[in-house]
């Protein structure tokens, strides 16, 4: 029970930090993020989940976790490839910004926490974080990045990524539930 509370608090903290970001960015008036900054935030968010997957590949022995992590690495790389191809086509150079910096800073903390765990505790921490992270990224993409995007093709790309993020979230929740029954 205690563990569950801790996770919920962590998930909430992650969500709050995204919401805080949104309000900071939105408070500055429109448009606050250029398309170059949106592209950078999108690539960063995807790269972070690839990094989490790499830690899982290194630390987990659970087939289910390893397969999930492999799908995360492949899918998020496919999104990055599409985003990079589009920025090249549009001659936009992704630009580091408050959102991508915040995402990276949060991810570094999470990676340290994941690396400190092993065995079943790692598997649980990894999948709990995948649930929290996808929840946060879905809301950031829908409520922040998409509304901030000017270019129609970039907006379409971000919109088409949402169903994949939602499927990942449902998949992670499925594994989370199975593990809690073991």
């Amino acid at each position, binding site marked *: 029970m205690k563990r569950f509370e801790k996770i919920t608090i962590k998930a909430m903290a992650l969500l709050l930090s995204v919401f805080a970001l949104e309000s900071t960015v939105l408070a500055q008036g429109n448009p606050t993020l250029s398309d170059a900054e949106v592209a950078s935030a999108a690539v960063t968010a995807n790269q972070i989940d690839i990094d989490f997957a790499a830690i899982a590949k290194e630390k987990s022995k659970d087939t289910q976790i390893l397969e999930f992590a492999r*799908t995360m690495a*492949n*899918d998020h790389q*496919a*999104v990055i*490839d*599409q985003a990079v191809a589009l920025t090249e086509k549009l001659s936009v150079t992704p630009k580091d910004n408050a959102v991508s910096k915040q995402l990276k800073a949060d991810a570094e903390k999470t990676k340290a926490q994941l690396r400190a765990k092993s065995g079943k505790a790692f598997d649980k921490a990894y999948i709990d974080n995948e649930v929290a992270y996808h929840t946060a990224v879905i809301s950031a993409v829908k409520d922040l990045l998409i509304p901030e995007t000017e270019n129609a093709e970039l907006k379409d790309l971000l919109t*088409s990524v949402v*169903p*994949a993020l*939602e*499927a*990942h979230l*449902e*998949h992670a929740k*499925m594994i989370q539930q199975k593990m809690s029954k073991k």
Partner: protein
Amino acid sequence: MMTPMLVAMHRVLFPCALLLLTGFPTLQERPATKTHRLEIVRMKFSPSNLSVQPGDTVVFINLDMVTHDVTEASGKTWKSPPLAAKSSWKKVMKTSASYYCSFHPVMKGTITVK
């Protein structure tokens, strides 16, 4: 030199002769089988419930940017190879099946053969 009349006769007689030799195959067989298009788009099989006749072909087309597959639900009878973005795979359906994507198990569908 063939007169136009002869040419016309050849055009009629040759197919007739062919039909006689092969015994009117099209009249003896069941109606031709159909090909059904099944899109994989926005992380869903569409249509997710499809009805086909025995022997019909179903073509799965991946329109997403991520790789999917089509795996029969028991995991024992059939499975497509990984379908990268924009690739497709076809299967002749003889029996009904439930299926899912092994990369994204939340993606599911059924094909009813009747």
